[in-house]
């Protein structure tokens, strides 16, 4: 499917909950509201037209002033199209639901986002740290403006 077809199909289903990001990339980028996030993922995986059977990546982004974002890059093997789904999370209380029951691949990505950004994923089957060491208690290092022990910022010239 082309960019327009994917956008149209999702717009039909979700209407105003879906917010298209205008850019000149070949694949569609859009925001989905928190409430419809899980539903969209489930729809994207199971809809025979969309058939997004491959979660390429799940990454969190921290906007230090107002919000967190979780960005999913979805791909379809059979249909050979891609899309980027994003969801905005509250800055002070970043929480959403897990999608690791839709794509098993999301499991580790969510653990990583939990650990490095402090985003909560409700219903995650195995919510334990992935990358940092066991007695790490210096906060969430990937947040903007984080400092901690042994962290040396690059000196500006």
């Amino acid at each position, binding site marked *: 499917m082309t960019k327009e077809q994917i956008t149209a199909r999702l717009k039909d289903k979700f209407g105003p909950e879906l917010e298209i990001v205008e*850019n*000149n*990339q070949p*694949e569609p*980028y859009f925001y989905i509201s928190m409430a419809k996030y899980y539903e969209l993922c489930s729809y994207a995986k199971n809809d025979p037209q969309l058939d997004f*059977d*491959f*979660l*390429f*990546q799940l*990454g969190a*982004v*921290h906007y230090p002033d107002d919000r967190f974002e979780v*960005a999913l*890059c979805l791909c379809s*093997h059979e249909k*050979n199209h*891609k899309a*980027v789904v994003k969801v905005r999370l509250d800055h002070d209380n970043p929480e959403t639901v897990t999608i690791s029951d839709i*794509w*098993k*691949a999301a*499991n*580790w990505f969510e653990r990583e986002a939990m650990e490095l950004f402090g985003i909560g994923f409700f219903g995650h089957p195995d919510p334990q*740290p*992935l*990358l*940092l*060491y066991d007695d790490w208690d210096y906060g969430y*290092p*990937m947040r*903007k403006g984080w400092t901690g022990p042994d962290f040396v*910022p*690059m000196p500006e010239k």
Partner: protein
Amino acid sequence: MDRPRFRPHAGKITVDNMIENKDLREEEFLINMGPQHPSTHGVLRLILKMEGEFIRDLTPYVGYLHRSIEKIAENRTYNQFMPFTDRIDYCASMPSNLAWATAVEKLAAIEVPERAEYLRVIMVELNRIASHLIWLGTMSLDLGAVTPFLYAFREREWILDLFEMTCGQRLTYHYIRIGGVARDIPVEFEKSCRAFIKDFRRRVDDYEAILTENPIFLGRTKDIGILPLDLAKDLGASGPTIRGSNYGWDIRKVEPYSVYDRFDFQIPIGANGDVWDRYMVRIEEFRQSCKIIEQALDGLPEGDTVRSKLPTVLRPPAGEVFSRIEAPRGEMGYYIVSNGDKKPFRVKIRTASYGNLQCLRPTSIGLKIADLVAIFGSLDVILPEVDR
């Protein structure tokens, strides 16, 4: 006194009595494999729940090589970050470079000269061979055959010579740059490269003679660690791992980047996704890569190797991009968020091993520890890709 010791029995010796006495009992035990273990290819740690030789459960623990490359990326300019991509996948630095370069070029809409595209293809395919050679060596080492390891490294040195004459490095090349490549190839490169390809085809036959036709090797790999296609897709497996499961998915074919659409090559696929199939897919990829390199050398156009008039400090427009390429281990891609500054706002690195490593658990439960080693070898996981 936490371990059982032999001591005489008080009463009559029966099985029940022995179990009661805790002298003879059956139990599952935990084995900690790694982070320093010869066959975990780096610093993976596996906790195995064993029942004798059988694996009842296993949990991979990663993060022993977590170098916070994503954090570093936010504090470097786009060009400064390129050397770090070398270190994400040190066995295949060129594809990592290429993944970053294509992502940034897609974001900033930079055209690349044709000669540079061809050189990129040549280098990436050479590096694919070099990376698969490391895989071949370590996998055969995992199965107990030491000699193929040394043969593989012997051929790899030849490829490294080619890289060295091009960019002066053996492992971390930093050769592919945003908008082209660092410099043109030296005059003698083409001749040496053709000689290598010619010789290497024969060497691949040698590897097959020592491994493929070996009944012990067959016994160790056939029908071991079968990865069903659905599961592979669900877990995010890619590259030779998913191709071994009878699925011809290769970004070079389905979504051609660079100039891959101009070359004639096949995508080898396996039959049912066992260790043997993944092995054969990679062996066949040796031959296909040779074919691509030859075609690229034949069609190498004249011209610039880097796009002129690129600003020294790149400031791509605000926005986001995600792009992926086919690295030797599978799909490698970057998700970049830019706010128009000279440094990326957020870089998310998605590597092939991240998905492939998650295939280890479902494929190896119920098998023996020797099979686990074989499966892990065939997945070709490299830990810096998982941890980053």
